[in-house]
């Protein structure tokens, strides 16, 4: 327990600055968006029907980078401080879940806060926003899936080298091309979140994240730390 607490603190120290920079930039962009919508409505994208929709994609990309870094950087770093693999991996699951939950929560706060502000300013982007929990849950489960998918990719690169990693990227691209519909985060989160299909998809993401966690452990259990 003591080691887990310390590792959590390590992740906090390690991630605080990048997280602070990320959200500062995102909030600045969001504020600029509101200002533009209020004072220069002619230059805004009229087809965009969701508030701060770009944030969803940005968060997903931030988390996938975090996933890759956890596998390729945090693993050898924590091993160099004598952390056992089992504790590292359990902590990786906990930290990732916390980070995804916090990111989804933060985006919820931004969307809800932004909705209030834009309504006050008389700018209407969307008539209503989904309920707080379904919106949070649909994001959380997707982010978790996204982060573990790329943690797995990072692990394959770290453990097996460049070629297997590239093959895995090719598989990702293939699956993405074969999957129906496009990847519009805002649409997926906000339109489907409250409905039955939204819950089903979210549970599916959670299940797939659990499978990825299992596969990840099989790869980490005896993973060597690179000696070169």
């Amino acid at each position: 327990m003591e080691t887990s607490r310390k590792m959590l603190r390590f992740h906090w120290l390690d991630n605080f600055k990048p997280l602070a920079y990320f959200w500062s930039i995102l909030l600045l962009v969001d504020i600029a968006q509101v200002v533009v919508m209020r004072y220069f409505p002619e230059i805004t994208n009229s087809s965009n029907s969701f508030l701060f929709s770009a944030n969803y994609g940005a968060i997903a990309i931030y988390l996938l980078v975090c996933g890759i870094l956890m596998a390729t950087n945090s693993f050898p770093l924590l091993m160099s401080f004598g952390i056992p693999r089992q504790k590292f991996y359990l902590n990786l699951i906990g930290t990732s879940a916390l980070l995804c939950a916090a990111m989804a929560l933060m985006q919820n706060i931004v969307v809800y806060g932004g909705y209030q502000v834009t309504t006050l300013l008389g700018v209407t982007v969307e008539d209503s926003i989904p309920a707080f929990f379904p919106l949070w849950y649909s994001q959380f489960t997707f982010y978790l899936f996204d982060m573990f998918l790329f943690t797995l990719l990072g692990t394959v690169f770290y453990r097996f080298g460049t070629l297997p990693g590239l093959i895995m990227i090719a598989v990702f691209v293939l699956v993405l091309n074969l999957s129906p519909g496009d990847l519009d985060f805002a649409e997926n989160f906000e339109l489907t979140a409250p409905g039955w299909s939204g819950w089903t998809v979210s549970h599916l993401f959670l299940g797939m994240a659990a499978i990825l966690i299992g596969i990840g452990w099989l790869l980490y259990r005896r993973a060597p730390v690179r000696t070169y």
Partner: protein
Amino acid sequence: MNPIMECRQIAKNYGKSQAVRNATTVFEEGAVHGLLGANGAGKTTLLHIISGLIYPSQGQVLYDGQPLHDNPSVAPNICLVKSDERSWADYKVKDLINYCSLLLPAWDEKLAAELLQKFRLPGNKKYKQLSRGMQSMVGIVKGLASRAPLTLFDEPTLGLDADMRETFYELMIADCGERQRTMILSTHLIDESANLFQYITLLEQGVVTSHMDKDEFVEQAHYLQGDTSLLQGLASDPRVLHEESLVGTTVLVWYGELENRDDLERQGIKIGPVPLQKLFVYLTRKGNSNSEEYNNGNFS
């Protein structure tokens, strides 16, 4: 002395090549061990195995009687200082020291601060921006201030000047004396670190060829210097590691028991000790020539 660590027939394969072969040895508690071997002998691989960073392809490593790998209770007792910590590259020295303080269970904050000051390490510089010697110093701070019962140093003095190397040796001796820590040191600077070692483990092409008390190890080797006609008969003995002749005088390096010491001295042959570094060189060369003979099919 009780063994703190035991390696039982461990091997490590990388594809078709074998970095460590059937290594069986023990490391006694509360002593400084010298892990010696030529480049590519398998020292770093062995250190990585006994620190738990990599798994052996075969065999078992025991720490204090318990299996080392897959055992979370053992890992905090071992601290490995690598010669090159790639994962530290993008971190500032002060961040690394913070992480050490957070994650190493027996971390000595006061000693770390003293060492940072002694080595004049710039806290705000990234590890990758430091000179080779300064990177070694950060590793030394980690190793010494970790107060880990078993500390492994892989080439800890790379790039250090003579003064700093001496400082490291002094600190190491003082710490081992006060706290009964066990340290395993892999180094190529054998002469200057010879006085530190209580035990020597010799690795040759992945095989542990000797593990013994350093004094006992050195006492087994002798220079025999005398008239070539007198020493000619001994030159073909398998215990002769090296032979040099110059205008009627021959020098042999003998490794093993010298049964007829008194006779030889009576005949005027001078018998002297062989420094550890020289002994290491002769043993390595002998090992190489034996393996060449083995590879050429001349080994009997």
